[in-house]
């Protein structure tokens, strides 16, 4: 879905959100209360510089509006694949962005990430997957790994892998698979504004994904193992 269309549906009373290249920032209201908006567009690749822009913006939001809900709009093609990015220690930059998201959480802000475009690998972890809730809208395409990469590693015939992908949600790209694994809290098809308002009103403090993966039958082992270890 196009960014403008998403914004119109999310914030029918209007919003003050601007794009500057790949960066999306601004303010809006949900259920009459202010929310901050931070996102990316154009399937941006996330490197050290993009990470710092996002982290600085988020720090600014947390400092100026502690406790205000933050809506993250997710659309990226993953991390920048380059020696110069890794030379500077890209994982440390991603971790910094996650630590700032954690600061927002600890300051009482609820983080709701809405996946509306692509979301790939490390970029998805750095921006989207560590929000308090991650939802997607129809048409969004999370893909941890492309099937071709899995093909190279497993050396399985393409036909067999493709047919497995239709029956087993554990590895194949796509929102429905990711939902079954508990990775998406919900998939929205309409009434985005109402859904957002409802989420912001609810308790988002716990990571529910292992339980959701179990309920939905995609990840049947995780929850029981985590519980067993805590109780051991």
């Amino acid at each position, binding site marked *: 879905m196009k960014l403008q269309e998403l914004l119109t549906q999310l914030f029918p009373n209007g919003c003050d959100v601007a794009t500057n290249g790949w960066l999306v920032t601004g303010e809006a209201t949900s259920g009459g209360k202010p929310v901050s908006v931070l996102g990316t567009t154009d399937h941006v690749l996330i490197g*050290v*510089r993009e990470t*710092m822009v996002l982290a600085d913006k988020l*720090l600014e939001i*947390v*400092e100026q509006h502690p406790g205000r809900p933050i809506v993250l709009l997710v659309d990226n093609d993953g*991390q920048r*694949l*380059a*020696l*110069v990015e*890794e*030379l*500077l*220690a*890209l*994982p*440390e930059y*991603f*971790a*910094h962005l*996650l*630590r*700032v998201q*954690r*600061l927002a959480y*600890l*300051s009482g802000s609820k983080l709701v990430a809405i996946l509306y475009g692509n979301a790939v*690998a*490390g970029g998805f*972890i*750095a921006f989207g*997957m*560590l929000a308090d809730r991650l939802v997607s809208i129809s048409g969004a395409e999370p893909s*941890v*790994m492309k099937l071709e990469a*899995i093909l190279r590693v*497993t050396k*399985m015939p393409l036909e067999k892998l493709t047919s*497995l992908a239709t029956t087993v*949600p*554990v*590895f*194949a790209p796509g929102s429905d*698979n*990711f939902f079954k*694994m508990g990775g998406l809290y919900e998939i929205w098809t309409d009434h985005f504004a109402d859904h957002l308002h409802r989420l912001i009103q609810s308790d988002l403090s716990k*990571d529910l994904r*292992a339980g959701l*993966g179990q309920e939905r039958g995609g*990840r049947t*082992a*995780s*929850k029981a*193992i*985590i*519980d*067993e*270890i*805590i109780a051991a």
Partner: protein
Amino acid sequence: MKPLFRISYLEATARQRIAGLLDRSSFQEIIPPTKKQISPHLGLFGAPVSWDDGAIIGEGQLEGHEVYVFAQEGKFRGGSIGEIHAAKITGLLYRAAQRKPKAVIGLFDSGGVRLEEANAGEIGATEIIRAIFEAQKAGVPVIGLLGGGTGCFGGASIMSCCCDVLIASEEGRLSVSGPEVIETVMGVEAFDSRDRALVWRTTGGKNRFLFGTVAVLVDDHIPAFREAAVAAIGQKRSFAIEALKTEARRLRERINSYGDKSDASQIWETMGLPGPGVSEMTAKELTEAKLLSKP
């Protein structure tokens, strides 16, 4: 000069590393291999499984302090993060958040998310990161060790950088995308993954130490890791807004100072270190040289 007698961390298995790191015979494994908790997914691909899914977790003592430990076995499917693997580490961290040992020690050795379980692994990796944050919130620091043969890539690299402190040997390579991935996608001229010297000086523990990503550099010697881990107990990173602003300034300055460099040896020379000579220095020599260099 390297120490003459070394017990290699690099060559050891995850279980040998734990045994060498903790006080003698103090390790109590949780969900040991006898429980046969194997991956429910690998079989679909005709891939071999392991009774611990490449993740070993438990409790032990370090210099008399109660610590929890998780260790990734790089020799089983590249230490990759699958459903069971991730759940074991996540569970241990939540247990730590509740029971508050002195620290959690994480022995990273992983190529990242397991491709055959890509969705479960990616979600699991972020559940681990969330659980690291929960342990830290409960006041339990997480200490990361990097020195395994597989390195620390993808989701594992990001979670390791969320630790309170990282201890590494030169051999402990750390990056989001592995050199092979960059070469496959961008071409050999972008990153020649078979140029071992290039790989090590770009992603290796020395470069990470000189930037401060890694706090303590050690030689590839298990007792050296142990000594550094003992000294690191109690070190905590703050989530105060001022601390995060300082972190942001440090990371921005790194881009401003070195963002135009294409090779680690140029960076080291700018820092006032003997560019190519850095590779020859022991951990102690480089630690002393770093004190005199420009940040």
